[in-house]
């Protein structure tokens, strides 16, 4: 693909709000995970909860969108000046020339979960104040963002479980390549809810400790929430050296199982190879890999086989889910932007909570952060249903 400019970006997770807070935590090797005390849940696990989400108040004209997921979306949009950059792009190109491509897995489902506790005891009806379209429906996120900026271009929510917001970058890149838009708001938001906490617990995929990606003793994920946004544009000829670029994307399907990865990581390998091909790069061009690394035994083993087969032990890798938790549908965008920080701040992120990297996975797995020049980075995102997406980012010379 023709490289695209990532002209503005921001991310918010349990590590902190915005780029500076995230960078400081990544440099310190710290983690934002804490024992689960979300809502009325009673599960012995750790989660990554974003601070002060419910302090967000949506504009009165958009009150119909009010739910935890859109509060988190607004909190993210109003960080690092992202909202101003989107408005400036809309003024420059026209509001009909800006597309919205956002990923989420469960979106505003918490709003439906809460509404089901308030059903009419006689009729069973849901309360009148529950607005399905603007909260529960997966499109709520993309439509909220489109309305937040009064945009009039195309919009879609990508919902492929934990690869959602990585695939949002690919969908946006395609529309930019066709010239059907001039800029794209891309990213992802997923927020804590009972469905994912009890759901992953039912599959025995939640750890009772903070998750330990690629650890010999890894035993499950830490469910988390996050919001990550970027503005994608075609690359101008006079782009500033050091500008962040999207260089390639690759997508594939496992065609294997609904909730287990292909045991040899075949789908993962195909996505990585497609992303490298799209970027016109080979494995030794990559200086850092942000692994999907959920810390379930099967995910890390499968992904590890794919990465070992392509990169051997040459390329520094880590999963940052020990720091942020698994932000599910937001993970693709969150980790794409962790790659952005690695590229623009000479940082190889580590893997908080991982003590002993699994010797059965022969890759260069990094436990502690280290300063290093990173020119190109790969980010992996894989989801239920066997949905795989890898992205390649770089910086302009």
């Amino acid at each position: 693909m023709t490289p695209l400019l990532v002209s503005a970006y921001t991310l918010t997770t349990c590590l902190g709000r915005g780029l500076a807070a995230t960078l400081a935590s990544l440099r310190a090797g710290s983690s934002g995970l804490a024992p689960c005390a979300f809502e009325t849940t009673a599960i012995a696990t750790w989660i990554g909860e974003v601070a002060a989400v419910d302090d967000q108040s949506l504009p009165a004209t958009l009150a119909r969108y009010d739910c935890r997921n859109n509060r988190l979306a607004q909190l993210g949009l109003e960080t690092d000046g992202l909202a101003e950059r989107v408005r400036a792009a809309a003024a420059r190109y026209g509001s009909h020339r800006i597309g919205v491509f956002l990923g989420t897995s469960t979106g505003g489902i918490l709003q439906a979960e809460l509404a089901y506790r308030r059903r009419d005891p006689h009729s069973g009806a849901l309360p009148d104040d529950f607005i399905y379209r603007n909260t529960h429906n997966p499109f709520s996120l993309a439509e909220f963002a489109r309305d937040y900026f009064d945009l009039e271009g195309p919009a879609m929510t990508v919902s492929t479980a934990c690869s959602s917001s990585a695939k949002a970058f690919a969908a946006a890149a395609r529309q930019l390549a066709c010239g059907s838009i001039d800029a794209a708001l891309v990213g992802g938001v997923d927020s804590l809810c009972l469905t994912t906490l009890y759901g992953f617990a039912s599959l025995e995929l939640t750890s009772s400790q903070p998750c330990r990606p690629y650890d010999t003793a890894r035993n499950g994920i830490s469910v988390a929430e996050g919001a990550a946004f970027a503005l994608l544009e075609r690359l101008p000829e006079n782009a500033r050296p050091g500008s962040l670029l999207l260089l390639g994307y690759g997508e594939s399907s496992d065609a294997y199982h609904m909730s287990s990865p292909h045991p040899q990581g075949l789908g993962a390998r195909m996505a990585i190879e497609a992303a490298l091909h799209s970027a016109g790069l080979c494995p030794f061009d990559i200086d850092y890999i942000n692994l999907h690394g959920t810390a379930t035994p099967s995910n890390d083993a499968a992904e590890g086989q794919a990465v070992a087969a392509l990169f051997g032990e040459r390329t520094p890798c880590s999963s940052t889910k020990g720091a942020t938790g698994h932000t599910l549908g937001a993970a693709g965008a969150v980790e794409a932007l962790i790659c952005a920080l690695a590229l623009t701040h000479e940082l190889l992120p580590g893997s908080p909570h991982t003590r002993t990297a699994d010797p059965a996975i022969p890759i260069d797995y990094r436990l502690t952060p280290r300063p290093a020049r990173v020119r190109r980075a790969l980010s992996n995102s894989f989801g239920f249903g066997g949905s795989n997406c890898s992205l390649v980012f770089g910086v302009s010379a």
Partner: protein
Amino acid sequence: MSQTPLTAWVDGVGFLAPGMPDWPTACAILRGEQAYTPAPSVLPVPNVLPPAERRRASRVVKLALALGLEAAAHAETDVGTLATVFTASGADGHNCHALCEQLATDDRRISPTRFHNSVHNAAAGYWGIATGAMAPCQVLCAFDASFGAGLLDALAQVVVDRWATLLIAYDSEYPEPLHRKRPIPDCAGVALLLTPLQSVRSLARIAVTPGTDAAARLADGELESLRTTIPALRSLPLLHRLARREGGSVCLDYLPPMQLRVDCVPC
């Protein structure tokens, strides 16, 4: 920046809606050769799935599989080679209701199968298991604009990535109490196999551009009601052209104020 037209050849169609079990029936009705008689949608058993998955296959999975397989068979194409774009205004409504209902009780130990079937991309996951297709698989939602969103991304995959791409747009009903909040009447959808190169099986060439005109309507009141109540069937004015092998441009509802103008040239 010059715009690359979002254009593709339509090589196959799959269709399923209340009173219209497949594309040949829909063709006859859309051509006016057969009267439309409303009837509940009939969902075929997905024999392509392994027995364990077949038992778990919900209405929405049966619907999506039937649509995709019909379009691929119509085009005489190997489904295992196709990229896919699934687009739906919601996922499995019955499963969603069961989860929300249980999570509102004191016993929140939900079934793991219910949980993995709750993802918006469940039908796409079962498609992969059924067909062995390892090509890119997109899964979108844009509420009432879901057909348009899917069409835009599927055409972009054809134009940019040069993949033969199977667009599967489908919707299914919610049970009460969600049904009152989102009154989709029944299961329905359409699949279009879109390819970058013309073949002997190509039915038409379509090109999509943004527009602001009002969407075309169907003369038959019952068909028009299907168009407006089931998001995937916002495609019906285009299908009307394809069924009658008529050329010309037709406007489809997308996302206000943006509409999609589809220029259609039959082969």
